[in-house]
């Protein structure tokens, strides 16, 4: 099963405040899951795109990275050895190795609240309204367009 809705970032609204990091950090066992990159002047969050053909799943030799029944790419804590193959495989830098704990912090799409109809926590908390949780065709109505089509799944970044 594939995800209908994903998290998208409107680059023209992101102010680099790292609220997404803070809310994710505290709601996911204090793991630094959201990472930041600097494609322009402001550091913006690198959030898992939940790719259609996830390279991290292909790269994982232990079956730790998998797509669950709701279409979310998950990491099994029990199976993860912290080898870092998924980190190397992810073309978007959305994964980073937790070297001390020998496991890879991975966005779980806030499945616990999304399945109850709520927004992922990073989207709900974003004070700039830069993060959207929507299906691809819904985004077109907002005037956002993809700035790069180089993905194996869906591109995170949108521009006005």
């Amino acid at each position: 099963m594939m995800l209908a809705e994903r998290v998208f970032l409107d680059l023209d609204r992101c102010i680099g405040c790292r609220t997404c990091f803070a809310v994710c950090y505290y709601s996911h066992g204090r793991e630094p899951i959201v990472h930041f990159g600097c494609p322009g002047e402001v550091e913006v969050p690198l959030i898992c795109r939940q790719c259609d053909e996830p390279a991290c799943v292909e790269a994982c030799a232990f079956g730790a990275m998998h797509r669950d029944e709701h279409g979310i790419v998950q990491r099994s804590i029990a199976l993860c050895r912290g080898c870092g193959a998924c980190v190397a495989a992810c073309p978007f830098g959305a994964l980073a190795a937790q070297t001390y704990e020998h496991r890879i912090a991975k966005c779980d799409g806030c499945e616990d609240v999304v399945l109850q109809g709520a927004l992922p926590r990073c989207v709900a908390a974003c004070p700039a309204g830069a993060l959207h949780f929507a299906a691809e065709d819904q985004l077109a109505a907002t005037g956002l367009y993809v700035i790069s089509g180089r993905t194996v799944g869906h591109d995170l970044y949108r521009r006005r």
Partner: protein
Amino acid sequence: MSDATHCLLCSLGCPLQFAGHGERRILVEPVRGAARGLCGRGIGQGDLADHPLRLGAAWHRDGDDVRRVSPRQGLALLGEVLEAAASSGPAALVADGNLPCEELVILARWSAARPGRAAMAVHLPPADLDALDGVSSVAARVIAPEDVAAYDGVVVIGDALATHPALARDLLDWKYAHRRGLLIAVDTHRSVTSRLAAVALVVSPGAHQQVLAALQAMRVEGAAREDGAVSGGLADCLASGFPDLDGLARQLQAVRQLAVVVVPELTKNGDWASVVRAAVELAGDQGGLLPLYSFGNALGAYRVLRNLGLRTVPELLSMRAAWACVLQVGCELRSTYPAQLLAPLFAPGARRVSLRPFPADSSAAAELVLPLRLPGEYEGTAVDGSGRERTLRAGWPPAAGSVSVATVFASAASTASGVAETPWRVVPAPAPCHESATSPMVAAQAGAVRLLATVGPAHFDDGALTRMAEWTSHWEDHPLVSLGPEDAARLRVRDGDRLELAHDGSSLVLACRLDTTVPEGLALVPGHYPAVRRFLPWRLEGTRLVCSTPVVEVRRAECLQESSMPR
């Protein structure tokens, strides 16, 4: 008890709620469907509730003997300390301006019940206080963030999106809804807000009034006259040139309703009251003013302060009384101001009592420390920057052992009379205009730069509270000084070098970060570290505290990159 309350970590007062507390782990989230989001510092408050360093009991010092006592014993000891001090001199009470209005009134009653024996001051950040005086002195139409949608032009003074991230949704909604609207950012460097604005004007610290006056002239008189005086006036007070001043003048003239957002920041200007007055002039009759304070209850505390005739901290310092006892409730002045400035208050022999949620370096010297509730645990009323009352409820169960102001002072204050019940609902009389005290525009010399303290989206006031939140350590766990590439080349420093900054006999060693957004002659340093704040040149000017941008000598303390390289 409801689980929804309002954030007090800036004057936007965002609604927040806590989402479960299994084993007292508090997760703070924006209120679903009712909020514009929440910034990281608001979310980080949940981390403070059960922080291992949080005071859970009272501490009493008797010489070198420090012992933990129960809250009940702490209250009894407080009575003893106050009684003993009363025979030797007056007591100074300094209350944090972010306490709920009701608690400030209780403290005012406590003080009023001791005529001649106690004086109360309310601590507000000097820039907030200055701006509040400015707003009070003019007939400004103060607007709320969501009111911005009705305007067709917005001028933002300061880095509003860094200091008040929750403003972003309203401001950006406006920006993308008004494709032809004019968004002007006026700041001392290319800040986050400047990057999102259509027009970014870079001004020297202290020159905001002149820039606003020049914009006002351009708005009234339009494009440059033949002699170029109007746009030339603006060009003269910009730190770096702007390519199309005539075009800007035409755009300004086309704006019918202008909203002006003012963020009073620590060192960017020494006279925020004048900046506010200039902003109101620029906005005109049809315009609106949106002041953004750093304290969530700055306006409520200001009204209590002025309507009850209480003192500000600089007024207390200028009294030069021989204080027998100093009580600090919710604030720790010695984390914020240099010791020499506070010398009149903390003279040797003065007994010190501190009510705080966390220990501070200086509370180690206090005779008695009582554990106070956190802002997320307050109950009462706050007034946001737009004048709307916000009901505060304990967002999560207060920690065991923590006390509220009402618990400590209410019974002692009940005998006072003549103190208004709800002074925060009354707009105070206009504050008198003080003499303009803009910081001198001293040009940086060889080997020197002007140092500017900035405010970021993660920290609040002096950072003592927000730095306790673990998430901030993943972002910034020590201060860095940011230099532009021109100054870095001139001073021969590289990214990562350790620099010694010095002025007037004080010095501070910080690592250097090169930042292309910093203009020449300026260095930026985060202003939410006690060491940085104490390094800044605070001075008492009459009954005002002024903190200007010092010219600092820059020397390379040590070069980490070179030290690891073979020579």
